[in-house]
C-alpha cells in the first residue's frame, strides 16, 4: 500500500517508529529525518545516501539491511490524529505541580513585566484610536525609574522602563473622550503618587482696600508684602527702607521688582519679613513684591522674569560633611 498524501506518509512513518520502539533510540526523530527515511523506503523515490542513519536503528548490520528489508515489517499508516477531538478532551491534572498564571513569574521583574505586557497589549489594541497633540494632554508626573524600582522592589532595567514609558505616554495621548477605562486603569499605575501638576497656582486677589499680598522666600527668610497703589513709600516691619536695611544694595534688592518695571513711584509696600539675615530678607522681599505686583499688573510677568524677580533661588546653606571643617574646607595639613 502506498501513502497517497503527505498526511498518510507522516502517519506511516509513525507506525514504523512505533513498531521499532523497542530497539529504536530514545531520541525522537525529526520530521525531516522521518521524511527522508520514508523516501528511502518507498520505491517511488530514489535512494538517498543520507538516509542511512535513520535505518541504522533497525539492525546491527546496515549493509545487509539496505539490500534486504525484513519482509515482515509492513508499513501501516496510523489512524489520522483528530485534532478537534484532542482539543475538546478535558485535560485533567497532567502536571503534579501548580503552574503560575503568568510566565512573568519566572522572570526577575514579574510585576513590572505584567504591567509592561498589559500596556503593550493595550497599545496594540487601541493603536488606532485618535490622539491629541501632546501639548493638549493633561500633564502627568510619571513614575521615574527610581520610583518604580522603589515601589516594586524589582531591578527594573532602564531600557525596559524607557520602552514601557514610551507606550504609556502614547496611550496617554488617546483622545480623552474615547479613552477606554482599561487604559485609564492601566496608566494609573505608572502615575506618581503626588501629582505636582495638579497644584494650580492660586491667583492672588486684590482685596477691597486695593492690597495684593505676595509671599517670597530666600534662604531662611520669608517675606509677606502687601502692595497697594501709592507714591513709593516702603515700610518693612514698621521701619522705613533706609532704617531697615543698612546696605544700599539690600534696599535696591528689596524694591528691585518695582525699580525694574519703573513702578517705584506708583505703589506703596507694607511688608513683614521674618527669619534669615539681611540679604535673605531683602531678596525674599524682592520675590514677594514681584508677586504682589503681578496681581496688580499681570502683563509685567515677562519684564519681572527678565529682572530675576520670579524664580525662587533654591540655594541654601550647604551642609557640613564629616572629615571636613566646613562644607568644603579641608582640615589644615599637618606634617606627621
Amino acid at each position, binding site marked *: 500500500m502506498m501513502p497517497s498524501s503527505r498526511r498518510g506518509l507522516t502517519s506511516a512513518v509513525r507506525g514504523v517508529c512505533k513498531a521499532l520502539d523497542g530497539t529504536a533510540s530514545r531520541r525522537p526523530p525529526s520530521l525531516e529525518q522521518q521524511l527522508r527515511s520514508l523516501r528511502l523506503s518507498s520505491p517511488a523515490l530514489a535512494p538517498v545516501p543520507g538516509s542511512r542513519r535513520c535505518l541504522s536503528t533497525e539492525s546491527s548490520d546496515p549493509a545487509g539491511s539496505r539490500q534486504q528489508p525484513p519482509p515482515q515489517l509492513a508499513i501501516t499508516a496510523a489512524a489520522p490524529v483528530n485534532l478537534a477531538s484532542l482539543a475538546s478532551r478535558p485535560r485533567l491534572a497532567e502536571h503534579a505541580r501548580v503552574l503560575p498564571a503568568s510566565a512573568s513569574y519566572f522572570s526577575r521583574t514579574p510585576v513590572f513585566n505584567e504591567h509592561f505586557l498589559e500596556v503593550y497589549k493595550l497599545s496594540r489594541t487601541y493603536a488606532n484610536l485618535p490622539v491629541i497633540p501632546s501639548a493638549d494632554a493633561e500633564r502627568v508626573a510619571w513614575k521615574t525609574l527610581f520610583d518604580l524600582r522603589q515601589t516594586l522592589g524589582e531591578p527594573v532595567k532602564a531600557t525596559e522602563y524607557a520602552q514601557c514609558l514610551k507606550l504609556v505616554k502614547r496611550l496617554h495621548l488617546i483622545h480623552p473622550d474615547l479613552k477606554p477605562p482599561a487604559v485609564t486603569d492601566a496608566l494609573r499605575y505608572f502615575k506618581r503618587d503626588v501629582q505636582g501638576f495638579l497644584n494650580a497656582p492660586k491667583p492672588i486677589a486684590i482685596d477691597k482696600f486695593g492690597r495684593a499680598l505676595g509671599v517670597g522666600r530666600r534662604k531662611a527668610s520669608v517675606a509677606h508684602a502687601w502692595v497697594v497703589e501709592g507714591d513709593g513709600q*516702603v515700610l518693612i516691619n514698621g521701619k522705613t527702607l533706609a532704617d531697615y536695611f543698612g546696605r544700599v544694595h539690600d*534696599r535696591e534688592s528689596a524694591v528691585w521688582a518695582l525699580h525694574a518695571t519703573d513702578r517705584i513711584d506708583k505703589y506703596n509696600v507694607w511688608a513683614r519679613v521674618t527669619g534669615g539675615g539681611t540679604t535673605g530678607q531683602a531678596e525674599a522681599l524682592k520675590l514677594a513684591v514681584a508677586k504682589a505686583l503681578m496681581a496688580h499688573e499681570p502683563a509685567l510677568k515677562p519684564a519681572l522674569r527678565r529682572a530675576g524677580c520670579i524664580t525662587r533661588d533654591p540655594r541654601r546653606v550647604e551642609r557640613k560633611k564629616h572629615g571636613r571643617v566646613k562644607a568644603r574646607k579641608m582640615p589644615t595639613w599637618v606634617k606627621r
Partner: protein
Amino acid sequence: MSAPNCLRCLVRPSAALRLSAPPPASALKPATPPLTAAASRRAPFSTTPAAAAAPKSSSQGQQAAAKGHVRKGKRLTLKGKKKQKSLDHGKSPLPGERKAYRKRITLSNDNAIKVPWLTDLAAPDLADPANVGKVLALPPTTQDQLRASEAFKPTQTWGMFRQPAVLVRKETVDLTQRMQEAAAARKVLRMVVTGNKVTGKSLMLLQAMTHAFLNEWVVIHLPEAQELTTAVTEYAPLADTSPVQYSQPVYALKLLHAIRKANADVLAKTFTVSEHSELPQSLPAGSPLLAIANQAKEVDSAWVIFQALWNELMAPAPNRPPILLSLDGLAHVMRVSDYRSPAFEPIHAFDLALVRLFTDALGGAVKFPAGGAVLGATSRNNSPRSPSMELALAQREAEQQQQQQPGVEVPQKDPFFRGYDERVDAVLRSVQVLRLGGVDRREARALLEYWAASGMLRTVVDEKAVAEKWTLAGGGVLGEMERASLLTMRV
C-alpha cells in the same frame, strides 16, 4: 588722544624712537643687552621718545639675557632665613596728625563743576517761604564764621562740591521764621531739633547759625556736647557756688576764641555797660565786647572772661544783638557726666558751669535782652540713652500735635522705671520740638539737580530717578540720599 605723529619733529613715534635712541649699547658695553626689546614694548600711542629716559639699569630679563641662566635666584632654600625687607615708608605721621587728617574739613572741590545758577544766601533768604526747595550757597564770610564755630562736620559732604551750599527745607524756613519772630518780640525761642539718623539735624543747626550770622546775631555754638561731659577737658570747682559748680577753662578758652573769630563784627559794635576790673586787663564801661573776648589768651583767666562776656551780652541795654545759643548732641548734657567731684561722687552735667549756662537758657530761666534762640540738636551717633530726655521730647511733640488734632495721646512716665532724671525733666518742660524726617519730592529733586549740575550725580534727573532715590533713601532722608547717590561713587 595722542597724535599719530610727534608734534614737535613730525616724525612717526617709532622712527623717533630709533632716531633718539643712543647708538647700540652692545658696542659700548657688551654686558648690556640692546634696548630694542624694551623700546618696542612701549605703548604705541605714546609720542614721548622712549630713549629720552635713562635706560633701565638692570631688570631681571636683561640680566638673564646677558648671563644666561641665573641660578642664584632659583636656589632652593629650605631653612634659610628670610631676608628682612627694610621697606622705607617715608616719615611716619606725627602724633595727632592722623586725627587732624581724619577730622579735616574740606569745603570746596576745584574739580567739581561750577553750578551757574547757584546764588549766595542773603540775610532774609532762609526765612523766605519762596526759597523752599532751592539750593543756595553760603557766602564766603559766613563760611569763615561757620568754620570758626565748628558748624561743619567731617562726615558731611562739603568736600565734593565747588562751594558749600544748603538746601532750604520747609523746616528751615519754619525754624528761621520762629527765630525772627522771637527776636522781634525780644523773646527766646527754645527748641530741640530731633529726628532719625542722618535726617539733617546738625545741618538744621548750621542753617539756623547761618541765618543768625547773616542777620548779625551773636552765635555761641557748642559743637560737640560730648567734649563737655565725657571728662576729656580739664575742670575745676568754682568758688562761691552751692552746690558746687565746675568750670572747664580749657574748653572755655577754645569757645572764646571761636566766639571772637565768628562774631568779631557784632562784638565790635556792642559796648560794655559796666566796667570790668576782674579781667586781666580791666576795662572801663563803654568799651567794645570784642575787647573782652580779645583778652582770652590764657587758660587761667578764660572762665572769668567768658563770664564777663556773657554777663555783658545779658545786660539789659538798648542795642544788644540777639543771641543764638546752640548745642549739638543734646543727650550728652542730659545725664550725669563722667566727671567726679573731689569726694569721687559723679557730677551731674548740669553742675558743669558751661552746661548749666546752656540748660538754664534752654529751660527758660534766662532772658536775653534782645531776644534770640536756644537750640539743641539730638544726635544719633554715639549718644547715650537719656530716658528723661526721650520721654520729654515725645511728650512735647505729642502736646504740639494735640493743638492740631486733639485726640493725640501724650506718653506718660513708666511708674516702674527708676532711670528718669528730674533735673532734665525740669529743663525740657516747656521746650518746642522740631522733628526732622525726609524731604519731599520737590526738595529731593532740587538737591539731585544740584548734585547733577555739580557733576557728582551722573544720571538724568527725571521723575523716575527722583522717585528711586527718594524711596531708596527711606522717604527722602537726606543722608541716605547722599549714601544712595553720591557716596556710591566714592571709591
